[in-house]
């Protein structure tokens, strides 16, 4: 079993991905509590958001602080598209939702191309602040275009969710299975990306941004591609969130929304691939239990993050992986 797990191949990852999906479907029926289903869905949506940011933070070493811009772009694109007459005119009918999701990915990807092309020229804190500045521009635009976006009210009035391929997203089970399937699929693709030569190129830039140029390597292209991919996936997460909430809100483009995936990365760990997903789980569970019992959510979240940062000095999954490796080495030595 362990030798099977050790094999670091796409096929192993694909098997694990499929198994996790089947497992979560089973969970849906074993635990018939809609609250639990809701948490699991949200964990995957936010997990995608955090994982996409971790491409930049964990693997490229760039602390992007405006990632919510792409999340919001994805959400508003999906909402506006589904509300528009466009669908009727061009008769997308039952394919409205897949088209809307693809469009969200595309729009946030294009946005990331423009923002990224400018931001990646900078390093460190300058990079972080410029991404933040662009995000606040997007936020202001959303607030200003009241006629289109609904301003600070958010995108109201809902939108239709026509069934496609027998999937009716207005049914809880369909939505649950669909969201998790898409998320796991994208996580699988991300995993491939991170383990590919391209992904190791990112680690190379993270470790030493100067040296690759002297090895004949084009840093800037590599960074930009990573930025676009991260933005597109954040857009996808945003579109799924919009589908869940049947709306989109300007807070999703506010800077506090960019801090959320950062918290998840801190909580879960940035050096282990699934760390941010684990972080999303902790974040959601905290959110659910704490807000049910007290109004001091921010205080509790702050204390938990502090205890992780000062106590473990790393994210939970990073810590678990290191402990696991240590005990395995000890066992190997004892033998």
């Amino acid at each position, binding site marked *: 079993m362990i030798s099977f797990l050790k094999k670091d191949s796409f096929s192993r990852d694909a098997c694990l991905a499929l198994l996790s999906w089947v497992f979560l479907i089973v969970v849906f029926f074993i635990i018939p509590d809609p609250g639990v289903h809701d948490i699991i869905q949200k964990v995957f949506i936010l997990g995608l958001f955090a994982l996409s940011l971790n491409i930049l933070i964990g693997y490229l070493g760039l602390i992007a602080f405006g990632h919510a811009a792409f999340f919001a772009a994805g959400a508003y694109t999906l909402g506006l598209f589904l509300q528009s007459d466009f669908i009727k005119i061009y008769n997308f009918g039952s394919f409205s939702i897949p088209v809307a999701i693809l469009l969200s990915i595309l729009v946030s990807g294009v946005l990331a191309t423009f923002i990224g092309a400018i931001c990646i020229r900078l390093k460190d804190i300058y990079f972080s602040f410029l991404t933040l500045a662009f995000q606040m521009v997007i936020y202001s635009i959303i607030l200003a275009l009241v006629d289109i976006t609904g301003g600070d009210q958010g995108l109201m009035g809902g939108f239709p969710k026509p069934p496609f391929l027998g999937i009716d997203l207005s049914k809880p089970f369909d939505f649950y299975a669909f969201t998790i399937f898409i998320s796991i699929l994208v996580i699988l693709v991300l995993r491939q990306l991170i*383990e590919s030569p391209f992904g190791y190129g990112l680690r190379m830039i993270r*470790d030493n941004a100067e040296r690759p140029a002297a090895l004949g390597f084009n840093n800037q292209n590599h960074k930009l591609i990573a930025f676009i991919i991260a933005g597109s996936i954040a857009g996808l997460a945003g579109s799924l969130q919009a589908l869940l909430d049947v709306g989109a809100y300007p807070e999703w483009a506010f800077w506090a929304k960019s801090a959320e995936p950062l918290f998840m990365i801190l909580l879960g760990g940035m050096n282990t691939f699934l760390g941010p997903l684990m972080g999303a789980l902790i974040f959601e569970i905290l959110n659910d239990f704490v807000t049910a019992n007290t109004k001091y959510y921010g205080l509790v979240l702050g204390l938990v993050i502090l205890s992780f940062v000062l106590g473990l000095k790393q994210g939970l999954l990073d810590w678990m992986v290191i402990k696991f490796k240590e005990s395995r080495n000890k066992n190997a030595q004892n033998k």
Partner: protein
Amino acid sequence: MLKINNLEKSFGGIIATGNVTLELQKQTINAVIGPNGAGKTTLFNLITGKLKPDTGKVFIENKEITNLDETETTQMGIARAFQITNIFPNLTVYESIKLAILSKHNGLNNMWTRFKDHNVNYEADKIMKLAGLTKSKNIISSELSHGDQKLLDIALALCLKPKLLLLDEPTAGMGPEERWKMIDRIKELWKKTKITILFIEHDMDIVFGIAQKIYVLQQGAILAEGRPKDIKKDQKVIKAYLGGGKK
């Protein structure tokens, strides 16, 4: 092989490189010496395209490379190792070398295969052997000794299969014993590959022991050039550089 004509570079009125002209023969080891601030590293930066010269021209094998950038000169066959060790601290020796080899073959844009499945073992083993890093294959670079980190830096440059290898103080920060080990390693490496080498060095004994031709830089200009035994006797050099330290 490398030809530099009347190269000049100044930073806000201070001349870092002043009218340098030199020509390296193929398959030779050449040294640049000179006191701090003589413009040695600047000269390297001008050759590799990290800096652009104010005037003058640089050729490699009769092709002009004066205005190419760092990435482009690499493709023309120039590789360098750095004065301050310049490696990838969180990657293992093998991963670093593999990345450099893949980079050379433009393999790092590939997203659809696994990095681990790429087999560059033959090339990587050869380079690790040349640099004496075979035993350290799976060690994280930041945990290597200072000397091994320097060797890894050189190994990364070798992955590019350069025609010209620039070594910026390969023995910087080393004890006497380690220095000689490093020099022996470089000598051996040169014997095996016959790459043209240009290196910067402070230690006179080392320079005279290994270099076939020496260039003495002072305030950006070439004060003297020639074989080690001629440089030793050169009055200008003795006065400007050797005189102070040796009695």
